[in-house]
């Protein structure tokens, strides 16, 4: 089982992005997805800058995939998408059907977590169009995944989102700008102030959602480290970690140990309860429950 690092969801400065990928070179991750996913206005790095990071990560032994936008509206966004799809060196992750429309004529691609893949017929169709990897929609459970994998094309890799704030929705509206009483067109890039979004609490102070520009995320991060053994049994090929502002090196090491079976129950429990700034998690989707739920799991059931 390999570990991937998903695209950065937040608006980080160029310096923070470069620093982050410098650290990633040393992290125990095999695959790195690069590029802007969320907001077309976030252009701290240009495609050439991303390609340079891609080259460096490749030299450091990582497999690089260029990820693409989830919500594509303006023609300028389609032009940018086209340039990414036409790049010569790197495979591309599609997060909108527009990307599949372009990629099916060009090369193999990854069907990302925002392509709605809920049944075997859709998996087969995408495989025929050139997908060589698919990422399970985050709201599906282990049980549905097992059913989906029964008739999966042999050469198609399966990837599952296992760590980080879950992308729950996308809008034309910017919720960060709204929080600051600004329209999106005059947003002043205020989302740059929040390197891990803005927590939205209920009036009872439960962390419900996390505001990230036009995207809403889960209020607490998902953590499926205790489900790694089950994923091995299901023959999941890749587990995806979504970049958070802090502790990503530790996160990658914990998952790497879980995959190598060198983690102990005590070590995992300690990490889940104490060693990060996050005191709450969710894992409900995997167990067929509301996504916000947390189910305590032992490494070996």
């Amino acid at each position, binding site marked *: 089982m390999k570990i991937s690092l998903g695209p950065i969801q937040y608006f980080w400065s160029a310096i923070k992005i470069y620093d982050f990928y410098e650290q990633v070179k040393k992290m125990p991750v095999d695959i790195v997805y690069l590029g802007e996913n969320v907001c077309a206005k976030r252009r701290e790095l240009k495609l050439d800058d991303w390609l340079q990071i891609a080259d460096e990560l490749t030299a450091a032994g990582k497999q690089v995939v260029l990820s693409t936008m989830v919500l*594509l509206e303006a023609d300028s966004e389609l032009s940018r998408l086209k340039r990414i799809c036409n790049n010569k060196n790197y495979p591309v992750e599609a997060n909108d059907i527009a990307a599949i429309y372009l990629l099916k004529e060009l090369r193999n691609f990854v069907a990302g977590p925002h392509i709605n893949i809920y049944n075997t017929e859709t998996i087969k169709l995408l495989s025929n169009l050139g997908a060589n990897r698919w990422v399970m929609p985050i709201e599906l459970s282990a049980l549905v995944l097992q059913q989906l994998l029964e008739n999966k094309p042999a050469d198609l890799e399966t990837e599952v989102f296992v760590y980080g704030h879950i992308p729950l929705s996308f809008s034309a509206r910017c919720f960060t700008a709204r929080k600051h009483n600004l329209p999106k067109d005059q947003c002043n890039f205020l989302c740059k102030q929040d390197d891990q979004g803005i927590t939205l609490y209920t009036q009872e102070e439960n962390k419900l959602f996390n505001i990230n520009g036009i995207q809403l995320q889960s209020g607490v991060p998902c953590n499926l480290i205790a489900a790694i053994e089950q994923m091995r049994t299901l023959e999941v090929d890749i587990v995806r970690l979504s970049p958070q502002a802090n502790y990503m090196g530790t996160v990658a090491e914990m998952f790497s140990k879980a995959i190598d079976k060198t983690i102990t129950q005590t070590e995992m429990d300690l990490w889940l309860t104490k060693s990060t700034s996050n005191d709450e998690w969710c894992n409900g989707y995997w167990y067929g429950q509301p996504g916000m739920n947390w189910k305590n799991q032992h490494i070996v059931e």
Partner: protein
Amino acid sequence: MVIIEQIPDLVCPAGSLPALRAAVDNGADAVYIGFSDTTNARNFPGLNFDIDEAQQGIDYAHQHDCKVMLALNTYPQPENWPLWTQALQNASDLKLDAVIIADLGLLQYASQQHPELNLHLSVQGSATNQYAIAFYYEQFGVKRVILPRVLSMNQVRNVVAATPIEVEVFGFGSLCVMVEGRCIMSSYVTGESPNTSGVCSPAHAVSWEETANGRQSRLNNVLIDRYKPGEAAGYPTLCKGRFQSDEDIFYAIEEPTSLNVLEILPELVNIGVAAIKIEGRQRSPAYVAKVTSIFRSALDAYKAAPDNYQPNAEWLKQLQRVSEGCSSTLGALHRPWQ
């Protein structure tokens, strides 16, 4: 002087036979219905059609020159895939005028097994740009796309100009703030989403309580809103709740409000939108009758005298009364809303 050659079809919701008749009687060009199960995105108790009712509704509509479309716009999973293929067979047997589909696998199945069916891409298919629409057209022969409520007027104009197929837009009703088909907020809190179960913020997860702090609404025990005495309380849809960030308690996502495009109807007609859809299969026949009749009048008034079109004050007042939170918006069509 503007001359209008073609006005868009008025597509109205029918959650029951009485609602269907109300739409037909008040001037709908087409109605859309769903079967009574998880195959459509308004899978609510007591709503929708069995085969017999569908047949009666189709007979009534066709006698009055009104088309009937079937929403099959949720995402089948391996276990229940046959429910959707059976629904397609039923649609074919009933000679429905179109089926509205979101799922890629089901679109392919329908295009191969039921070439006799007209396919429309559901708003739940999340097609917001010309490449995505071109994909659905080239792969499956989709004849119409229903646009998610995330595009500005300029973007709608560009999509209509760049796409070879018909474009349908929402004109009135409850407003999805998120890109439809890509929102899993409801399953995050309740375990059920539009994609998986055809519901958003489902009624069985809703609870109300009277407390010292006022009336409170909850969804699967999560506090969605708290109302002062005398304050009107709305259905606790997740994206219309009042939440807290820093010191502020506010409608962080959207106020309770409805979409209403009457004000910009001429622009939508002039850019060549093929159909205008009214939301609300979960609403009463009285709602359907009212909204259908007002939009019929508005479209006809614009066609008859395009230079003199103005939304009638009485129309707006009546629509306001059936709007969520008694307020309305142009949504994403109006750029500052974004």
